[in-house]
């Protein structure tokens, strides 16, 4: 069964149509890679699924179902707890590492101190950061390196115990080693979560995703198994993009 089912989705920002009639199913426990040049609507799609787009005067038509329930009828904070979004630029909140991880969960319910400690361990350990920061949880998060900050952002989402994790070019500013760490984290977690990975890096999509969708100017051109997509795409534009002829 599809975890997220998108039907006839159109998104407008003022006069610009950012997404045109998108129909797309995201399967449970898959890593769906979304590739495409900038301005193709990839990020808009994530913003709509998380309903962050509502902050910037967008108009949305069509339907998005999460476990067969319309996301537009869900309470917004429970939707955002279930569907986490990780941004391209790692932004840590002011305050300690510990506070960064516990901020999200504490918005949704009250925790005992011991429960929070456990949650922080779980989130940081799962995001492959625990060993590097376990001795300085109370120190400011902004002192971490870029790669560590991005993993902290992932930990922050994991602490919410979400069902879907969406990443918007999570490695765009990171070095290859940090990128490899984040990719291996993703792969090791895909049995428990559903991932949507937006990336400019087609090789990254090829490395981690089970299926890949190609977006161009707000349209979804093609979606297929990763292998098929990179060896034998149906559409010429897909082929041109992944072989580096444009984009």
């Amino acid at each position, binding site marked *: 069964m599809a975890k997220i089912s998108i039907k006839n989705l159109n998104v407008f920002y003022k006069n610009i149509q950012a997404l045109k009639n998108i129909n797309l199913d995201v399967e449970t426990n898959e890593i769906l890679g979304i590739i495409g040049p900038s301005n193709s609507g990839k990020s808009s799609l994530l913003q709509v699924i998380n309903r962050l787009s509502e902050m910037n005067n967008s108009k949305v038509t069509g339907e998005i179902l999460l476990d067969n329930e319309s996301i537009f009828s869900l309470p917004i904070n429970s939707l955002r707890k279930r569907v986490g979004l990780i*941004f391209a630029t790692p932004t840590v909140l002011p305050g300690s590492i510990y506070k960064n991880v516990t901020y999200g969960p504490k918005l949704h319910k009250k925790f005992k101190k011991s429960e929070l400690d456990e949650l922080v361990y779980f989130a940081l350990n799962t995001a492959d950061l625990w060993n590097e920061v376990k001795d300085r949880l109370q120190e400011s998060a902004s002192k971490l390196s870029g790669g560590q900050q991005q993993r902290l952002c992932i930990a922050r989402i994991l602490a919410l115990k979400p069902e879907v994790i969406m990443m918007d070019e999570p490695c765009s500013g990171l070095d290859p080693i940090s990128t490899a760490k984040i990719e291996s984290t993703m792969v090791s977690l895909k049995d428990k979560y559903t991932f949507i990975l937006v990336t400019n890096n087609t090789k990254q999509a090829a490395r981690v995703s089970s299926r890949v969708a190609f977006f161009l100017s707000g349209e979804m051109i093609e979606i297929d198994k990763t292998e098929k997509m990179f060896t034998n795409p149906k559409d010429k534009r897909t082929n041109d993009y992944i072989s580096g002829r444009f984009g």
Partner: protein
Amino acid sequence: MFKIKPKTTQVIAYSVLLALTVITIAVLVFIILFIFKNGIRELSWSFLTQPTKEMGKEGGILPSIVGTLLVTLFSIIIATPIGVGSAIYLTEYTKGGAIRRIISFGADCLAGMPSIIFGLFGFIFFVIMLKMGWSILSGGLTLAIMILPTIIRTSEEAIKSVPNAYREISYSLGGGKLDTIIKIVLPTALPGILTGVILGIGRAISETAAVIFTAGSSLNMPTSLFSSTRTLAVHFYILAREGISMPKAYGTATVLIIIILLINFIAYRLMHKFISKYY
């Protein structure tokens, strides 16, 4: 054509800017030294702890110290929540529309108003109409209105400078607007807001015209919010203007300046402690 070498331009710019800075500091140092030189010999334990006698010619200034601190404290307690509250409303709840421009314009006008106007208003409104009389209450409320625009504007700038990414992160984790403001925006903006509050304290504590009309000039020790009191600045003004005692006037001014320096020092220390803890 005559051309200055880039290096020479650098040297000129450096020296001009340095000179301007030195002038600024020099004026400050000169004023403080001048007041201290004339006032420091008046300072003594009894000057600080004795009641005022013979209109200020003899005795200490304890009632004025207490009165000054009470009026200032009261005005800050009133003005800070109102000012920060309106700054939050302006930045987080209005979308840069007409309301915001009108309120900001109003606040700017209010900030440029001469303080004697506030004094007159306070006198007519609080002292006479609301029958509060010359009191710490009337004085504090008047000063609160006077420093409100300073607090609103500095808080507004501080809140605006909180990166929008923080808000997005908070929303994306399921935070509501109020959660985001209380847990993310305000703590991040706190140093800037504090700067506004310090500026407000500075204005309130050294104000004469607005308080002389509203808090009165009683030399008795204040016993309640309804007591009239004479703040240090007013005391200094009366001593000097009526030629009662110039040494005592300088002594009073010295105490006032020391209090202001102390408040600033403590506030900046607190701020740095806060900043180094979080950033």
